[in-house]
């Protein structure tokens, strides 16, 4: 009686991706032990000159940002009432939830004393953006868990809690959108405090807004991308009728974002860095051409947008450009003031890749055993639990 099914579980076999996962997982465990036994200095290239590296730039900033599809789609379905997108809400919420678990796990590596992470609940400092981020991540992860709970509960036949969640879905979704809005933007606010350090190509009083809008753009890109990946992995067909309008929304979000970025660079008088082709200028061009210009240009054409291959290419570019942007804000843009170049240590990369691998494995397992993806049967009724 539901719109979704667990995918016909292909028998587990020892394939290419399992091997890759194994190859990453062994050094990952090794680095984990080393990091907690010897401290951050032993495994990272972090230093007094460069205290935040890959784990903040990629794991935290990108992990949260790319999970933005969850709040965007729940808002579209439950608040804007565009019910036709319902079938892809579940995989999106799952991605969001796993994304936040990924972020929190990465923080356990990055914090100097992660066993004190609960201090953020006890010792308050409302003047700190980090304090706000901590609370929002904590609360929103809880919201995502509740939004996803029906999928797990229905597997075990607990229908009463599902009814309760169904009854409060609207306030829950509103709470989720509020929290997401706050901390997607507050990741940008984190960098408002360094006007004398962050390069003018990236520093702006509007950083919170930039982070928010670009997260919506890239979050939608992720929804398209993950539909494609699961289609490949599980032999499903692509929901083009749903993804095509999403791509249009992504073009609008990225277009607005791109325009605002250019205005802010103009106001900072930083175009010189681009025309002089400096290190920062080049990195900006990579980010901007990949993440904004190309996806907007490509997906503005209906013919390309309705072609699965181009659609996925555009979404992939948007996500890639988003990642480069977050790395630019957190690393490239800060290197000038630090006076050194930061290149992540192999161990840092192993941890990030390992965590992404674990997240993907968790997604694959969830898809195998829970009803995540839509079934194209005419029997179902709208599973309005929000998936």
């Amino acid at each position: 009686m539901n719109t979704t099914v667990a995918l016909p579980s292909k028998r587990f076999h020892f394939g290419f991706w399992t091997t890759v996962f194994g190859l990453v997982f062994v050094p990952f465990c090794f680095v984990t032990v080393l990091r907690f036994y010897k401290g951050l200095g032993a495994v990272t290239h972090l230093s007094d000159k460069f205290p935040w590296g890959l784990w903040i730039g990629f794991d935290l900033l990108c992990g949260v940002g790319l999970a933005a599809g969850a709040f965007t789609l729940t808002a579209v379905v439950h608040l804007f009432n565009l019910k036709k997108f319902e079938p892809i809400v579940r995989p999106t919420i799952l991605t969001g939830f796993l994304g936040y678990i990924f972020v929190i796990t990465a923080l356990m590596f990055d914090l100097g004393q992660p066993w004190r992470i609960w201090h953020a609940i006890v010792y308050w400092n409302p003047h700190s953006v980090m304090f706000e981020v901590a609370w929002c991540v904590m609360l929103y992860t809880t919201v995502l868990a509740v939004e996803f709970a029906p999928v797990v509960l229905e597997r075990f036949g607990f229908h009463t809690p599902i009814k309760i969640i169904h009854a409060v879905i609207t306030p829950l979704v509103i709470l989720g959108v509020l929290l997401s809005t706050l901390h997607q933007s507050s990741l940008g606010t984190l960098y408002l405090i360094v006007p004398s350090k962050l390069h003018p190509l990236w520093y702006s009083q509007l950083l919170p807004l930039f982070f928010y809008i670009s997260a919506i753009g890239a979050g939608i890109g992720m929804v398209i991308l993950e539909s494609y990946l699961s289609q490949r992995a599980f032999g499903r067909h692509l929901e083009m009728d749903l993804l095509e309008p999403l791509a249009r929304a992504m073009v609008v979000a990225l277009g607005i974002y791109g325009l605002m970025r250019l205005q802010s660079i103009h106001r900072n008088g930083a175009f010189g860095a681009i025309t002089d082709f400096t290190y920062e200028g080049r990195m900006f061009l990579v980010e901007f051409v990949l993440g904004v210009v190309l996806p907007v240009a490509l997906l503005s054409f209906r013919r390309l947008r309705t072609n699965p291959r181009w659609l996925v290419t555009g979404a992939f570019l948007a996500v890639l450009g988003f990642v480069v942007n977050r790395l630019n804000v957190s690393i490239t843009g800060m290197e000038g003031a630090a006076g050194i170049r930061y290149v992540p240590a192999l161990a840092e990369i192993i941890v990030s890749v390992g965590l992404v691998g674990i997240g993907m494995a968790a997604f694959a397992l969830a898809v195998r055993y829970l009803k995540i993806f839509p079934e194209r049967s005419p029997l179902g009724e709208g599973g309005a639990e929000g998936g």
Partner: protein
Amino acid sequence: MTVGLLFDATRCIGCGACASACKEQNKLPGPVEEETSAYTWTTVKPVGDIYSRRLCMHCLVPTCASVCPVGALHKTPEGPVIYAEDKCMGCRYCMMACPFDVPKYQWDKAVPIIGKCIMCTSRVKKGEPTACAAACPAEATIFGSRADLIREAKDRLRKNPTGYVDHLYGLTEAGGTSVLMLSNQLFEKLGLKANLPSEPPAMRTWQVLSNIPDFVAVWGVFLYGVHWITARREVVAAYEPPRQGPDIQDDSHMGRPS
């Protein structure tokens, strides 16, 4: 009364007594290092024919204290910016945010904490000068109330205009600092940032954070309003005579041709 330090680079003889005294006072392990670190809270380095001293500037509105999510850093009424190591969870936002790059980390420890000059809080509370000021044989670093130090510094600038760069570093930098500096070289050459705004950086994030309650109320009502309108539209549509269209029936998304 808030206290502070005045460092006059033209008087410093580079003996390093301040750095050694600091190590002793704060029981910091190891020898005095080239650069400040978690174990060396102040350094003296030759820059051309003068010496540059680095230490925590003890901002009047400290950026580190504003960014710390657990409030492990705070400005005491006497002037020092101090650190509660038992609260710190090691996010290192203070290091990232400090306009003077002062807080340093114990990268070599499995249970690390931040290290930075705390202006000998325990001595200052008793009314004694800091260890570095007490140890300085050349009166290059002097201790006193911030107001007195500003008066003294301006006096030196007025009496000897050719002997100094006409700027009292720390008077307005990042909103003003309790540690003040005089020099006959450009302050950039001493390794100090010259591009610091006179508004405390903490105000920039507070402008955003202080608006959050208002924002939550407005955005929450807006979102609920959107839901109310769209849901109502659906109810109304259900009463209207059926017509062909994709968005009317709740279950219409099933098996609908694309």
